[in-house]
């Protein structure tokens, strides 16, 4: 296995050749803005959860470059199948801040995506969306469409049979799908070394006869470039691949977790030095493409966007009781209509 592909070093200095898009400063600031928005959202979501106004929430702190880099490499006509920690990718693709909050607040309307209509909702049962991605990709291939599916899951997911089956199926059918392992080094309290004896997760792809490689997941330029290559390959009919993006989960697993039970502050703080936002900011600063003023303006506007979305979310009325039944089937069967009527009238009577 080659060492992970990387363009920017942890200190933000370019250590490799820049891919074409990265020579365009506007492209880079777009990536930067998206990562900052993601982190701003993250902070707000945690605050809402801590004050009882949002459900259990999975932070993406420190992993923004994977999420944003992957989405930035996709075309809108591609389809994203995320796990539950890819807020950055969802935002990039047009899921709204308010939809994200509705989802994490426990409201199905958060999945109705006014934006990317074909994208899948978050997948909570770890790794179980991997075969869906193969199905989506197979649909593209059968219809001769130059599109690809992107499935993101965590390091823990690579132990699940569903993921192994999906990789193998994708290989057999040369399905245009790219699997991304968001390797944040932890599956709740289980570090990668207890998850598998394999020295890399990328090599799990070889079991399926498909290419696997590693990328520095805190380097958004490298992530985007790697995904662009993989997606082009997939869209061109050359088959699936898997990319292991090495990053680090700087936060607790979710707001319900207390990571101090199983890892030390020192361990974590080492990784702050490698985090993706600082890294790209340093690079942009060095280029003089970014400065303190622009930074402040960005933080302000991200904050405003997020606050506006939060207010809308908090103002949103609950769905009516009848909604509990709607969409269970295309057409509600008689007995379900009866249950619906019963529930609605019972609840009205209370």
């Amino acid at each position: 296995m080659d060492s992970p592909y990387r363009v920017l070093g942890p200190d933000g200095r370019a250590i490799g050749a820049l891919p074409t898009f990265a020579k365009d400063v506007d492209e880079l600031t777009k990536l930067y803005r998206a990562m900052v928005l993601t982190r701003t959202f993250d902070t707000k979501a945690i605050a809402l959860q801590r004050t009882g106004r949002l459900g259990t929430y999975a932070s993406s702190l420190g992993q923004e470059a994977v999420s944003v880099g992957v989405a930035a490499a996709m075309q809108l006509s591609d389809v994203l199948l995320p796990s539950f920690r890819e807020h950055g990718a969802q935002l990039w693709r047009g899921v709204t801040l308010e939809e994200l909050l509705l989802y994490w607040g426990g409201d199905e309307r958060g999945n109705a995506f006014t934006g990317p209509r074909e994208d899948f909702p978050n997948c909570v049962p770890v790794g179980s969306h991997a075969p869906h991605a193969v199905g989506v990709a197979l649909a593209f291939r059968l219809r001769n469409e130059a599109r690809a599916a992107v499935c993101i899951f965590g390091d823990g997911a690579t132990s699940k049979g569903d993921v192994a089956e999906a990789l193998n199926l994708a290989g057999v059918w040369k399905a245009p799908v790219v699997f991304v392992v968001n390797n944040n080094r932890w599956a709740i309290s289980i570090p990668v070394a207890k998850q598998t004896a394999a020295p890399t997760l990328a090599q799990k792809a070889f079991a399926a006869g498909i290419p696997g490689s590693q990328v520095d997941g805190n380097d958004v330029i490298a992530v985007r470039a790697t995904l662009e290559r993989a997606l082009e390959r997939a869209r061109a009919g050359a088959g699936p691949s898997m990319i292991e993006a090495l990053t680090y989960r700087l936060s607790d697993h979710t707001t319900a977790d207390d990571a101090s039970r199983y890892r030390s502050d020192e361990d974590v703080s080492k990784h702050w030095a490698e985090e993706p936002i600082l890294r790209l900011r340093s690079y942009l600063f060095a280029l003089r493409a970014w400065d303190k003023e622009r930074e402040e303006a960005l933080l302000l506007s991200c904050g405003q966007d997020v606050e506006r979305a939060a207010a809308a979310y908090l103002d949103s009325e609950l769905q009516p009781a009848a909604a509990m039944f709607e969409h269970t089937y295309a057409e509600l069967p008689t007995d379900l209509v009866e249950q619906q009527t019963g529930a609605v009238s019972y609840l009205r009577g209370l």
Partner: protein
Amino acid sequence: MPDLNLVQAINLALRRAMADDPTVLVLGEDVGINGGVFRATDGLWKLYGDSRVLDTPLAEAGITGVSIGLAAQGFRPVLEIQFSGFAYACIDQILNHASRLRKRTMGRLTCPMVLRSPTGGGIHAIEHHSESPEAMFAHIPGLKVVIPSSPQGAYGLLLAAIRDPDPIIFLEPTRLYRSAKDEVADDGASIPLGRCIVLRTGRDVTLVSWGGMVKDTLEAANRLATDHRIDAEVIDVATLKPLDSATVIDSVKRTGRLVVVHEAPLTCGFGAEIAARVAHQALTSLLAPIERVTGCDTMMPYPRLEHLYMPQAERIAEAVRRTVAYS
């Protein structure tokens, strides 16, 4: 109209569905050149090739998941699971995803897939090849569960299932694959899902069954008519979920007696659901305790004892006589 057995009727329905609708795909282990281990997909691969008839690797959960992805993209995958004993591996994908994709996206994504699988015993098969898992699937909201009991029924119900916009578990009684024969009209007519089929009207007692047990139940009814002047109504449930309770309830209200027959183990079998609905909606009409004639709460025996496990016409008849004699 040709005389077809049940597996031929399935094959005919698949041919019709594929001819009518280019989004219908068939996939599963050995469904291609081999035509399925029971030949349900015989000839389809020759007609439609690899792009519509997909042999799959051996991975039941995975191919269920793939079907979900295909369905979300507008295809209508018809997935064959070789035996329902291997469909337990699909429950996770079916329950956690297929059944709720529409709900959880408020209709933005849907899952019009059919999972076909042989069900039940009576073919002297090796272990895991004689399972009757219908009740487990019938507990899952968002699914439909269909079990035909005749070739013509299989044809019409399968067409309806494939045309349905929601995910369907379609269980085919293995022992009828070759033994049942019908004149099957290839008229493309589907039989509506969600309706029980009254196979025999009667005044004295209501017998409810589905799939492979319908034949034995009818046989019991016929014997009872001849030998004991007991006039039994026989209902083939056909669609277990959503259940057409009305037909069963109406019948029991007339007959006052109910015997449910199935092959799956007693406890938490689908017979319990029917009994519970009747005990709720037709209690005062009941003249006798509700009987269930079912498999036992042990696993299906290996073939040598299998015949002792499955309800047969005589055991059904005995229960009916007990019910009718009750006062």
